[in-house]
């Protein structure tokens, strides 16, 4: 397996460096190395949280401190064996992350960041105040780790104890990034609503990564306590949180490797500032290295937002002479290239692949009611956007929802798919009431959707987008992902995703970043993504917009195939003629009310529909002309 070799070669190289380093470096250098590894371990977790889940924690030292203090207390006061206390300390850090994450992770962006900053402060207040944590003086006399009567007390020894732990931590994190869970997290970061509608339980996923990041920090805290033999409130300090953040940003957001390179670089800055500043400015004391941190952070954001990883890609690109633009945080190819090729051939060979994908859904018999909407109502203040709408959708039919702007079509979709909670009324998917439920619950029942305002996963490729559509059709979780034990499932995902990509005629775009495609193609990616889920109910919001005539015809065929497979298709569309040709039944919304529902011919003749929506050509002409004319004559007279 040449690819496997290529994947793990950098880790082998790192392992070699870690083994050799203590033998060649001076003791003080090794000492710095020990700190870099300890903090690097915490930074790996933070890197997952920030780079993958897009969430910032400004109080990461809190988890570090929980780990360090728990370990110190257990080992000094209760004589718990080192290994046990390590495990308990890590679990304690994860527990705190879980308890804190429950309320905090409902927040986004600025609020989450400031809340974690607050958490950091509260933990440092608590450890300073409590008797059990030794107040301001902390806890002393933590013994050095001892395994098989070997005491790891010199920097060299401790480095060798720590290195394999960090290496394993790094491999696990990297595997996670490339797993099903990592893919889903990336999707959540790009478009939370789209990920939810494909069945990703975004809250649970965020919480898991938050807890995992807490665990990494807790473990780092344990090693910190071991190494220093003392735990003081400094371990919970704001300075340390800033340091972790800087390591991640300096190394490069979105790469777990960055956490390690960042840790080494930050530790180097730290040491050099501490020796340099008092020389430059006599009498400087205290945490003077902070100035280096602050300046580096600002310069990074302005000059090198991708951190050292960006620098690395730029340099290697230059060396290769490709001269191409370095991608700051490009999507890593998810599966080995060789496997990709064979899978692609397979997909091309099986012509009926889309039907195979759709058949996974255990579709109900044609004509069964799969979606029932009753008295669906949405009010915003005094405005009624959707007013008591009732309709049913049957398996194996295409129902079109048409109506003028602001009629409430998209609002209906939002309430059916769980994006919005209705003010009143009910939505039943396959007999289960789903109104007010989260979109991923609706998706689990088999109903998914596309979006009028594109919600593609912009940091990924076409294939990467479609693979997220397979989220519900695969099972591997966080742990299996970290241990890289889902190879068979990954190949399956690859195969079906490629088949779906092909069904939309997107083969030539498979590995292109989705952001590079024209809007019409991006829309098709959304349809492919939704089909990859093998839905029972497919909700399409203006799928034809931006497509050329030929592409529309192809999409029409595809929707016919989907219907023939037994899927219920509901679509909102403005191209009335295309809708009339495609749909089995047409529902017309006007001003939030359902004014007609029937087969296309019935609806076309319906006087209410003509009055509210279709109108007659003469009427519209007269209105516009007379307005212009009135005015013109007014001016003359």
């Amino acid at each position, binding site marked *: 397996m040449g690819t496997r070799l290529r994947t793990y070669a950098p880790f082998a190289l790192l392992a070699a460096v870690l083994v050799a380093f203590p033998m060649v470096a001076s003791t003080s250098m090794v000492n710095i190395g020990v700190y870099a590894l300890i903090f690097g371990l915490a930074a790996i977790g933070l890197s997952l949280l920030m780079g993958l889940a897009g969430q910032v924690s400004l109080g990461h030292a809190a988890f570090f401190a929980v780990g360090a203090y728990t370990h110190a207390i257990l080992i000094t006061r209760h004589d718990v064996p080192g290994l046990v206390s390590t495990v308990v300390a890590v679990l304690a850090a994860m527990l705190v992350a879980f308890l804190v994450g429950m309320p905090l992770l409902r927040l986004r962006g600025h609020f989450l960041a400031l809340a974690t900053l607050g958490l950091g402060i509260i933990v440092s207040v608590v450890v300073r105040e409590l008797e059990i944590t030794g107040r301001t003086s902390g806890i002393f006399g933590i013994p050095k780790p001892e395994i098989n009567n070997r005491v790891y007390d010199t920097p060299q020894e401790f480095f060798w104890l720590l290195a394999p732990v960090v290496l394993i931590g790094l491999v696990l994190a990297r595997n996670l990034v490339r797993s099903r869970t990592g893919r889903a997290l990336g999707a959540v970061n790009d478009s939370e609503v789209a990920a939810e509608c494909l069945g990703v339980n975004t809250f649970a996923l965020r919480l898991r990564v938050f807890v995992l990041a807490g665990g990494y920090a807790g473990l780092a805290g344990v090693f910190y306590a071991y190494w220093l033999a003392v735990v003081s409130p400094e371990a919970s300090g704001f300075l340390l949180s800033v340091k972790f953040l800087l390591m991640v940003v300096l190394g490069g957001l979105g790469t777990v490797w960055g956490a390690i390179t960042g840790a080494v670089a930050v530790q180097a800055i730290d040491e050099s500032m501490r020796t340099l500043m008092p020389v430059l400015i006599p009498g400087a004391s205290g945490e003077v290295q902070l100035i280096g941190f602050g300046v580096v952070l600002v310069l990074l954001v302005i000059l090198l937002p991708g951190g050292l990883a960006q620098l690395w890609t730029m340099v290697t690109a230059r060396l290769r002479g490709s001269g191409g633009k370095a991608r700051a945080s490009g999507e890593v190819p998810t599966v080995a290239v060789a496997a990709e090729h064979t899978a692609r051939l397979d997909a091309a060979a099986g012509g009926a692949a889309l039907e195979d994908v759709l058949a996974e859904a255990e579709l109900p018999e044609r004509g069964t009611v799969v979606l029932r909407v009753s008295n669906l109502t949405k009010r915003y203040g005094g405005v009624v956007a959707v007013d008591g709408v009732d309709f049913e959708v049957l398996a194996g039919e295409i129902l079109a929802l048409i109506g*003028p*702007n*602001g009629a409430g079509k998209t609002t209906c979709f939002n309430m059916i798919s769980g994006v919005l909670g209705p003010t009143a009324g009910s939505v039943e998917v396959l007999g289960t009431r789903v109104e007010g439920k989260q979109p991923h619950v609706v998706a689990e029942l088999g109903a998914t959707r596309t979006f*009028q*305002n*594109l919600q593609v996963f912009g940091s990924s490729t076409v294939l990467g987008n479609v693979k997220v559509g397979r989220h519900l059709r695969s099972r591997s979780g966080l742990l299996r992902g970290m241990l890289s034990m889902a190879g068979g499932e990954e190949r399956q995902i690859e195969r079906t995703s490629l088949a779906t990509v092909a069904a939309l005629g997107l083969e030539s775009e498979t590995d292109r*970043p989705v*952001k*590079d*495609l*024209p*809007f*019409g193609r991006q829309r098709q990616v959304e349809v492919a993504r939704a089909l990859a889920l093998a839905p029972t109910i497919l909700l399409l919001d*203006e799928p*034809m*917009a*931006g*497509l*050329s*005539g*030929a592409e*529309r*015809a192809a999409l029409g065929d595809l929707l016919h195939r989907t219907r023939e497979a037994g899927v219920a298709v509901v679509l909102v569309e*403005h*191209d*009335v*003629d*295309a809708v009339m040709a495609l749909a089995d039944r047409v529902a017309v919304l006007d001003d939030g009310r359902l004014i007609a529902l029937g087969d296309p011919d019935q609806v076309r003749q319906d006087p209410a529909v003509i009055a509210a*929506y*279709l*109108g007659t*050509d003469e*009427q*519209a*002409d007269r*209105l*516009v*002309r*007379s*307005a*212009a004319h*009135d*005015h*013109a004559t007014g*001016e003359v007279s």
Partner: protein
Amino acid sequence: MAEQGGLEVSGLVAGYERLEVLHGIDVAAQPGRLVAVIGANGAGKSTLLRTVSGLLRPQAGTVRLAGVDVTKFSAERIANRGLAHVPENRLVFPSLSVLDNLLLGGWTKQRDGRFAQRRDEVFEMFPQLADRAALAAGALSGGEQQMLAIGRALMSDPSVMVLDEPSLGLAPRVVGEIVSVLARLRDDRGLALLLVEQNVRAAFSIADHVLVMDRGRVVAEGTPAELADDERVRAAYLGAGAGPARPASTSQNRTTKEDQ
């Protein structure tokens, strides 16, 4: 043939991030003329206006305003030079009153002391706004917000006005009212107008010249009469094989995500 006071765009190439949306557009609007651009969703009409008014930096091509090359100017500088852009979805300042919206519309002319005069002209054009001067703009109906957006643009006393789908989501009666105001601005004030519309009928009813855009290119142009039965108009707008034009109120809001 740079016209004084007119807008002249040539070879415009523009887009978002790595995605090129416009692939070389030429369009000119002289004073006292109304040029309409029609085309389906995603044809690049809004991108054209956003590039013309400086919200987007073009990758190639030039934009000339009253004979001056403004291609590299920021949106604020272009506004200062007499181009007013009535944006898609109106974008009135919702928590500010109607009067404050107009006040800010005159931002570039805040020192010429003619605010009251221009305000009265706007109120005369849209009497409904006068009645609601003290009301928060967010509380207005869609049609009134559109009037306010046009009124706000007029407060800077522009020589060129570009409008992005002013008929969007409005009742035919209101569309008629707005169309008549546009005709008046062209005929009485001699404004150069560039109108982007999906409402083909409304656009054809007042345009002097029409361009049909499809996926970033101009695929046809001419007078409304010349284009009325053009197959390309229907193809570009309705998609191949579509029946007779039925364009009234067929557009839907699109994302207007802002690059800051």
